[in-house]
């Protein structure tokens, strides 16, 4: 079983048998069914695959953030992941926009790479 995701750098699960990344964590590698899996550092680069600007918070804890951009990021390594695009006006976000992980620790979020 994979240990909890480290949050001090941007990581994705990688299969030690075939070397490919995947996401989300699974009990076996979706490419080769290998079970020797580990968190491995990824480039943190990618592009916006799709996005939505949220105007109504699902729960009170998100109210202060509205409006905010939830996006699916296609990472340079291949796997998609849900995240947020931050430090950019919501109306400037586009599908295909190049993004990179915002430096620092914590839940990974993305900023414009241009």
């Amino acid at each position, binding site marked *: 079983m994979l240990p909890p995701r480290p949050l001090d750098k941007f990581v994705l699960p990688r299969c030690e048998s075939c070397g490919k990344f995947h996401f989300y964590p699974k009990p076996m590698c979706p490419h080769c069914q290998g079970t020797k899996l580990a968190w491995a550092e990824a480039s943190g680069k990618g592009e916006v695959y799709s996005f939505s600007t*949220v105007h109504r918070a699902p729960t009170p804890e998100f109210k202060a953030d509205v409006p905010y951009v939830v996006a699916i990021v296609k990472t340079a390594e291949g796997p998609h992941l849900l995240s947020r695009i931050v430090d950019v006006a919501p109306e400037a976000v586009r599908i295909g926009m190049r993004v990179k992980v915002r430096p620092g620790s914590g839940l990974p979020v993305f900023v414009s790479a241009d």
Partner: protein
Amino acid sequence: MMQAYLSGVGESPLGSVPSMNALELQRAAALAALDDAGLTLKDVDGLLTTPIRVAQWAMPVGMVAQGLGIRPGYLATLDVAGASGTAMVHHAAMAVATGQAETVLCVAGQNQLSNVSRDATVAQLANVGWASPEYEAPYGPLIPTLYALVAQRHMHEYGTTAEQMAEVAVAIRGHASLNPNAYKKEPISVADVVGSRMITSPLHLLDCAIVTDGAAAFVVTKAKKNRSVKILGQGYGFTHAYIGEHDHIATTGAVQSGRDAFKMAGVTPADIDVAELYDCFTITVIAELEDLGFCKKGEGGAFVEGGRIRLGGELPVTTHGGLLSAVHPGLAGGMFHVVEAVRQLRGEAGARQVPDCELALAHGNGGIIGIHCTLILGRG
């Protein structure tokens, strides 16, 4: 596909029904469906239901059997999310075909609206696990946000417009206006939809399903009755658990479920007289029309234009008013599409009747476009 018939359908009061709890709603729907089939609770030897969210039922089918005072020899709780409604027909038919039961009652529903406030329902749904609790929910998506991602990508790949999505809501509201049991009956325009509050771009309030109380039921029997409807084909399709795990989010599992259902029934999309499509959001219907083969991939937006999916059009869609306007009490939501398909095939749909309706398709979509079940039904 197999020797089993849909012989009775029924609904509880729908909409805002604060005087009834989940079991009372289900009882009302069950008795209506049995009465419709000319049967009573004494005849029931099989029972299927779905989980509910408003109460902590550790064993849903046991709770329903106990509530109805029956001891069926075949019983199960079925959960393929929003595809449960159509899948129940298939599971009941299998029980009949294998001799496990002769009369299977399928019933589900709950007081999703009256049990708690709409805000509480939105918060509850956000944390029920449709979004990965660890990898998605911390970013604050609504359930509609996860579908908005699909809509945004569909618009990007195929040029689908907000107005085309709005037409889905307008057409289905028009159908609801002809259904006395529908919750939202006041007609709306495309301008109303695109002018309604933006919830999670590109989805406006009126692109999203409503939240209501309600229960539905149907009876699947071994014996063919006067008003029985034939079960001609079914198929399932699965692509992913979480939306972030699906590499092509503008395409759904309906490709597989539709292909298998049409093959089993030996008919094509052009043969279908009415399509009761799962309509949790407007984009869902556009993607289903494409993926089921009613039009080419990417042409769903253009397909819905010009009144084509309205009553009187080439392919009337979701003629009871659907999840967008008639009723959406949770997992039971897709059962109403089956109930409506049966009514259309029997010629009992009143002001919203599709003339000469001989073949109907009912489709359920579950999760975030991840799991699908298509059903093709024919006049008895």
